[in-house]
């Protein structure tokens, strides 16, 4: 007997608890299997790139950090480095160390959010509560350092906005010790959970040969066993003076991506400890002209940063005026959350859609900017 399967259209989002933000996936399903998937974005477009063309250089910093909510610092870092490259401005060494510390702290904070999202997409709601709660300790550090919990506007052209407060390094160490201890709890609850292994191993596989061609970056790429990390390939700030390895995992499935991120949390903790040990004294800012009359020389720069979701690129063009001519953002979420997701969802079970989406680190605010 042949069975004729009827194709149904399901709209996953924009209001759906399983989606990572304001976007929608149109699923054509037969039974529980996705036949085709089409992503619809446009619920969160704020026109930042165009907006910045009408803003002074200094006014761009509060805009870029809003491009990705869970992880604003790589954006500030990118814009600051691009401006410094065009201007040829030196950054004091202490500022570079502080930048690395902030970037790694924000990486950990971002991974903590991801852990919660990944577990929540599988129906384990204890993890999000734990990780979001523990992430707050990092936000407390940010609040003390920068005045802002989520958006910091701390890294800017020529260095960082202000020096570390008294005793800050000790408090960072204390938080790191606590988080490291908590990771064993996370392992026992989630990463070693038999049901997590069942849901993640062999699911959502990215083909290793196709990964580069599809423009996969960050943990999904390292989860395919390809050692690619901007921090190593093209070291910026003081990453070349720090001791760390590129973490890879074979398999390319959800489990491999999860393990890459899990181990990178430990790695980031070790990087921050090295930074605190090696941090020299000195100024933290190389001041430029009055921001209201701040003109950049004509030129262009492309800079890359390794964010928690992958390689983040900024292409900045200056025509020598008070305002940028063009700032183009190349975020990992666009590649992962639109083109890659559409490919990976074909043949997936409905239950795996949100799990796959989370494992790719899809971030709708970054897709649309």
């Amino acid at each position, binding site marked *: 007997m042949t069975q004729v399967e009827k194709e149904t259209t399901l709209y996953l989002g924009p209001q759906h608890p399983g989606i990572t933000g304001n976007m929608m996936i149109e699923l054509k399903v037969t039974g529980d299997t996705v036949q085709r998937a089409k992503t619809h974005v446009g619920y969160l477009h704020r026109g930042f790139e165009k907006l910045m063309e009408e803003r002074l250089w200094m006014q761009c910093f509060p805009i870029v950090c809003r491009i990705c909510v869970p992880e604003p610092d790589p954006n500030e870092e990118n814009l600051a480095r691009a401006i410094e490259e065009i201007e040829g401005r030196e950054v004091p060494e202490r500022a570079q160390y502080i930048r690395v510390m902030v970037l790694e702290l924000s990486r950990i904070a971002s991974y903590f959010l991801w852990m919660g999202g990944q577990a929540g997409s599988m129906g384990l*709601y204890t993890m999000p509560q734990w990780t979001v709660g523990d992430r707050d300790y990092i936000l407390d550090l940010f609040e003390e350092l920068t005045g802002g919990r989520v958006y910091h506007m701390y890294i800017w052209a020529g260095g960082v906005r202000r020096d570390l407060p008294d005793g800050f390094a000790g408090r960072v160490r204390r938080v790191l010790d606590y988080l490291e201890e908590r990771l064993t709890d996370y392992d026992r609850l*989630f990463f070693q959970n038999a049901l*997590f292994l069942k849901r993640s191993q062999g699911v959502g596989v990215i083909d290793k040969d196709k990964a580069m061609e599809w423009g996969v970056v960050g943990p999904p790429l390292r989860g395919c066993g390809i050692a690619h990390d901007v921090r190593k390939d093209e070291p910026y700030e003081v990453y070349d003076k720090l001791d760390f390895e590129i973490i890879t995992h074979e398999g390319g499935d959800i489990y491999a991506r999860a393990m890459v991120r899990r181990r990178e949390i430990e790695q980031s903790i070790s990087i921050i400890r090295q930074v605190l040990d090696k941090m020299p004294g000195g100024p933290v800012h190389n001041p430029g002209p009055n921001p209201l009359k701040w003109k950049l020389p004509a030129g262009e720069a492309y800079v890359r940063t390794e964010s928690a979701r992958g390689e983040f690129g900024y292409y900045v063009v200056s025509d020598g005026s008070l305002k940028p001519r063009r700032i183009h953002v190349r975020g990992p979420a666009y590649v992962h959350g639109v083109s890659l997701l559409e490919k990976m969802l074909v043949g997936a079970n409905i239950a795996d859609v949100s799990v796959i989406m989370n494992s790719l680190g899809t971030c709708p605010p970054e897709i649309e900017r």
Partner: protein
Amino acid sequence: MDATVAFFYDLIPALSNLPDWLSYTIIGAVLTVGAFLFIAVFALIGIWLERKISGHMQDRLGPMEVGGWHGWAQTIADTVKLLVKEDIIPEKADKFLFKFAPFIMFTASMAAFAALPWSARFIPANLNVGLLYILSVSSLVVIGILMGGWASNNKWSLYGAMRSAAQMISYEIPVALSLIVALLLTGSMDMQEIVRGQAGGIFNWNIFGYFPLLFIAFIIYFIASLAEVNRTPFDLPEAESELVAGFMTEYSGMRWAFFMLAEYANMFVVSAISTTVFLGGWQPIAPFLDFIPGPFWFLGKALFLVLIQMWLRWTLPRLRVDQLMYTTWKVLTPFSFALILLVSFIKVL
């Protein structure tokens, strides 16, 4: 029924002076109201407890404000809120079935309470096929779910309902088979007979019969019953990240509350069944603890199992549909068949 009537005549001698039809009606009405109150109170306490337990597991406090001490009145306040909420029925829904579904589900789970043995003398309806009765009425729940999901005219609801139907029907088989293993030992379907057969302390309970065979049967029953009442890791019909809220997506206000009420009542019913069949029902842990009344033991054991269900909910992710079906058809069902064969062999020898 006779035992119950006798129990009530003992309690209030004046009842026996009334004509039979009147006294039976009074007793029946009292029992129904009692069962309903019990379910309502149990659900209130159960939901509050679940919030507190999940709160403490997740490094937070849970409800703390309403009522003063640890927010004990939170669920009462929520119930009042649900009662006065706007009654929303989707325009394209099948209105009659949409309204009817919560009642079917609630009635089915309430009917199961009729045959639960609370103590040596108190059982609302002492049927000689009590176990069979409970198993059959609790299967009716699936009709309510299917009806609610289908009538909502929402694809997510329909998906949830269909999943639920497939899941509950599949898991009824290991539930029944693992209970048969215990029945082989007891030789009766009468709930009171089953409990009486386990007198004499913890090691005479069925769970330790032919150790470890019945222990395995208990585990199988427990896993399968989790699936029957849609608890994690088998909460696929309401899987939030996939199906919004499954068959309950379009429900709100009091109808939704009835679904929740039925869910908590079901949690208690399956725990009460395993208490009766495997954990000695109202029998005390050791004979010298006889002076503590039966309902205490019965309720205590059942609540313990309910607590385990809540504990599992906050520590396990959920399975995928295919893995769910794999678990029942390729793991639980063959194992319970093997157990039946083994136990029968041992019994015959």
